[in-house]
C-alpha cells in the first residue's frame, strides 16, 4: 500500500469522527446517566429520600441495558437512529446507540462515586436544615467531584472503544478504518496505525481526567 495524501486525509477524518462520536455521545449519555446515578443514590434504602420499589426497578432496567452486548445493541437501535437522526449509517447514526449503551454504564459509575461520600457530612448538612436538593447540589456533587472526574475518564474511554465498532454499520472513525481498510482489505499497516492512534487517544483522555481530578481535589495537601 502507499501512504499517500488521501490516506493521511482519511486518517485525519477518522480521528475527527472518533473524537466527535465519543464526546458527543459521552455528553448526551451524561445528560441521562448523571441524574440517574444521583437518583440511584438518593432513593436507595439508606439514601436521603428512600423509594425502595423505584430503586429496584431502576436497578433492573440498568442491568438489563448493560447486559446487552454493544454490537447487538447497535443493530437493535439502528432503526431508532433512522427515526431520530434520519439515517442508520455513518458516524452520526452511531450517536444514538452509543448514548443508549453508555447512559446506564455512566449511571453506575456516578453511583459508585457518590457512594464514597461520608454519611456524616450529609448528616451535618441536614442538621443545618438543608433540603434534599441542596444536599445533592451543594454536598453530594461538589464533594464527590474528584471521583466523578476519574469516573468520567473511565466512561469516555469506554465509549471511545465502543465507537470503534462503527465500522460494522458503515460509520466512520478510527475503528472503521481499522476494520474496513485494515482488516477486510488486508492492509495491516493501516490497521496498526489506527489502533495506535486509538491507544494514544485513550491515554490522553485518561491522563486528562486524572489530572483534572487531582488538581481540583482539596483533600490533597
Amino acid at each position, binding site marked *: 500500500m502507499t501512504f499517500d495524501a488521501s490516506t493521511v486525509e482519511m486518517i485525519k477524518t477518522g480521528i475527527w469522527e472518533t473524537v466527535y462520536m465519543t464526546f458527543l455521545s459521552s455528553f448526551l449519555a451524561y445528560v441521562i446517566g448523571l441524574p440517574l446515578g444521583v437518583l440511584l443514590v438518593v432513593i436507595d434504602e439508606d439514601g436521603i429520600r428512600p423509594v425502595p420499589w423505584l430503586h429496584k426497578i431502576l436497578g433492573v432496567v440498568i442491568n438489563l441495558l448493560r447486559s446487552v452486548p454493544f454490537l447487538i445493541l447497535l443493530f437493535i437501535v439502528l432503526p431508532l437512529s433512522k427515526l431520530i437522526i434520519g439515517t442508520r449509517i455513518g458516524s452520526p447514526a452511531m450517536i444514538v446507540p452509543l448514548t443508549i449503551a453508555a447512559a446506564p454504564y455512566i449511571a453506575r459509575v456516578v453511583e459508585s462515586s457518590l457512594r464514597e461520600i461520608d454519611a456524616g457530612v450529609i448528616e451535618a448538612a441536614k442538621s443545618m436544615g438543608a433540603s434534599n436538593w441542596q444536599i445533592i447540589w451543594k454536598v453530594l456533587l461538589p464533594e464527590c467531584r474528584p471521583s466523578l472526574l476519574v469516573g468520567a475518564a473511565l466512561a469516555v474511554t469506554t465509549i471511545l472503544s465502543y465507537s470503534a465498532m462503527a465500522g460494522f454499520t458503515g460509520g466512520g472513525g478510527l475503528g472503521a478504518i481499522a476494520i474496513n481498510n485494515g482488516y477486510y482489505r488486508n492492509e495491516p499497516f493501516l490497521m496498526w496505525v489506527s489502533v495506535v492512534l486509538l491507544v494514544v487517544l485513550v491515554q490522553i483522555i485518561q491522563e486528562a481526567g486524572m489530572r483534572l481530578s487531582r488538581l481540583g481535589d*482539596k*483533600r490533597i495537601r
Partner: protein
Amino acid sequence: MKQPIIQIRNLGKEFKTSSGTVRALEGINLDIYQGEIFGIIGLSGAGKSTLVRCINYLEVPTEGDVLFEGESLASMTPAQQRKTRRSMGMIFQQFNLLAQRNVIRNVCFPMELSGVPKKEARARAMELLKTVGLEEKAKAYPVQLSGGQKQRVAIARALAMNPKVILCDEATSALDPNTTKSILALLKEINQKMGVTVIMITHEMSVIESICSRVAIIDQSRIAEVGSVSEIFSEPKTRIGRQLILGDAIHQANFGKSKKVRIIFDGRESEEPVISNLVLACRTPVNILYAATRDLDGKAMGQMIIQLPEDETEARRVYSYLKTVKIPFEEVTEYDV
C-alpha cells in the same frame, strides 16, 4: 429556674433491622433550660447519640414528642422542621466539614443554605472565625487543619445561624486531652457570652465534670438519673451512675496472700504524699499493714509495710513506680512482719 428551651416528652425510638426491632430509646422525659450546659452521658450503645438526633429530628422518634421553645416538632411539616433545625447548631465527633471547601466557605455553608447574601455571610463568617481563634486559617482547607482546629471551624459553622442551642455529639472524643480542654473552654465561653444553650453528649465523665451544670445519665435506652452535676457526683443513686462516676476508683483489688513490701523513709520531704502518689500513679490500691514514720525537721524517717494486689501486672506497676521515684524498698515475707 429559667424557661425550658427543649422539652422531651415520653420519647421513644425503635429501629427495624433484619434481626428484628431494636429499642434505642424508651420513655425519655427531659427539660433542658435556656442558657444551661446540659450533659447526657452513657456507655456506648446506651442510646445517647440517637437521643441527640431526636432533639433536632434528624431521627424521627417513633413515640412521644420534642418541644422547642414550646413548639412541637412532631406536628411540624418537614420544611418547618428544617427551619427549626437552623436554630440548633450541631457539632460532631468526626467534625464533618466539607473537604472540598475551604474554612471560610465551610462557615458560610449554613448561611448559603438559607439564602443569606454572600457578602453578609462572609463578614459574619470572619467574625465567627475570630471568635474561635482561626481567622488566619480562613483560606485553608480542612485537610490542612489539626483535629482541634477542625472542631473550631465546626463550632464557628454551628454558630453561623445564631442558634439558640448547640448540640455536641461526642465533640471532644476524637481529640487529645489538651485540645479537649481548649474546645470545652471555647464552648463554655460561647455559652456565657452568647447565652447559647449547650447539650453535650459524651461517654467521658471528665467532660461533664468540667463544663456541665446538669447531667442526665442514660442507660439501656432509658434515663437512669437526672440532676445537677454536683448532686450526681457526690451521690450517684444508680448502679450505672456509680460505675460512670467512680469508675476505676471502686476498683476491687484482692489482697489475700499477695506480696508485701517494706518502704523505707530515709529523709525525703515529709510534705511529699508518697503513698497517695503511688496509688494515683499506679491506679491500684495498696493495703497498709504497718507504719512508723516520724517528721524530723521536715524529713520523713521510718518505714511502712504495704501489701500489693494479687494481680501480677498491678504489683509490677508498683515495683517500677517505686524504682523510678527512687524510694528504697524491699520485699518482706510473712516472717519478717
